[in-house]
């Protein structure tokens, strides 16, 4: 299970990234580029987990997993949503901050001291990759800040979009798509939270189901539905 679940998540993510990049080439838009990059990060994270499950510990694989899968993925996906919804000037500013923070995160992760034995400490069994392997203080502290930004922007943006479409009763496919994206985006985070509490497999399953739901949500949001919206003619109002 620790191999095929993350491997499926990885394959789903790379296929999803292909769809997003193809759409980017056709339509442009930085949000599509960032979503594509974010899904590549998602895929790298899943691949590293599958590698660990199949072949065991490898420091390079761990560092790649922690950087792309644990730190960067949500924030970069969320940055795509920022480009979609926020003013360009704000989005550019946040992009610069995220870029610099990502470089800093990469330097910290690749210079950190590791001890894989620590992954079996506490509630963890060691069967899944865990940030506990990082000895150097201050590295794991970075993760919640990236994930906070990613959750607020990605999930918040999807919810905001769904709310706007629902309030106006337009583009039902986008309402549904954004709801699916919002749900899918929370699943890996919840998987990570449950994993912290010692529930084996929660992280990997959360990532797999999250990738599938976000993918379906993206396809739904970008594919108009054949069912026409119902129109309700309001009763005439008599003005006195």
């Amino acid at each position, binding site marked *: 299970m620790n191999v095929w679940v993350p491997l499926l998540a990885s394959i789903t993510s790379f296929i999803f990234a292909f769809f997003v990049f193809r759409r980017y080439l056709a339509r442009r838009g930085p949000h599509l580029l960032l979503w594509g990059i974010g899904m590549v990060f998602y895929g790298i994270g899943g691949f590293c987990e599958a590698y660990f499950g199949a072949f065991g510990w490898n420091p390079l694989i761990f560092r790649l997993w922690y950087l792309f899968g644990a730190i960067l993925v949500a924030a970069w996906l969320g940055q795509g949503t920022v480009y979609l919804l926020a003013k360009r000037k704000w989005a550019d500013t946040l992009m610069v901050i995220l870029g610099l923070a990502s470089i800093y995160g990469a330097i910290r992760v690749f210079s950190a001291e590791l001890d894989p034995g620590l992954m079996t400490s506490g509630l*963890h069994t060691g069967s899944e990759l865990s940030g506990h392997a990082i000895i150097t203080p201050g590295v794991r502290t970075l993760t919640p800040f990236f994930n*906070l930004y990613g959750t607020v922007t990605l999930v918040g943006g999807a919810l905001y979009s769904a709310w706007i479409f*629902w309030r106006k*009763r337009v583009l039902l496919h986008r309402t549904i798509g954004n709801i699916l994206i919002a749900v899918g985006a929370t699943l890996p985070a919840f998987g990570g939270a449950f994993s*912290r509490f010692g529930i084996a497999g929660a992280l990997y399953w959360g990532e797999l189901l999250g990738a599938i739901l976000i993918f379906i949500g993206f396809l739904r949001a970008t594919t108009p539905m054949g069912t026409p*919206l119902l129109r309700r003619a309001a009763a005439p109002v008599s*003005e006195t």
Partner: protein
Amino acid sequence: MNEEEKAPPPTREYPPIYEMVVPIALAVIVVVVVVLLLIIVGVALGLIGG
């Protein structure tokens, strides 16, 4: 009295199932996200370990 009748522009509606499900789904996700954010903040502050 002005007897003139005005017909406001028609308002749209989603199919009934979506009219019911969408607001419930949005509300549930908002609650879930708030819980998630509290967990993330808890981790950031070191209140939640593992």
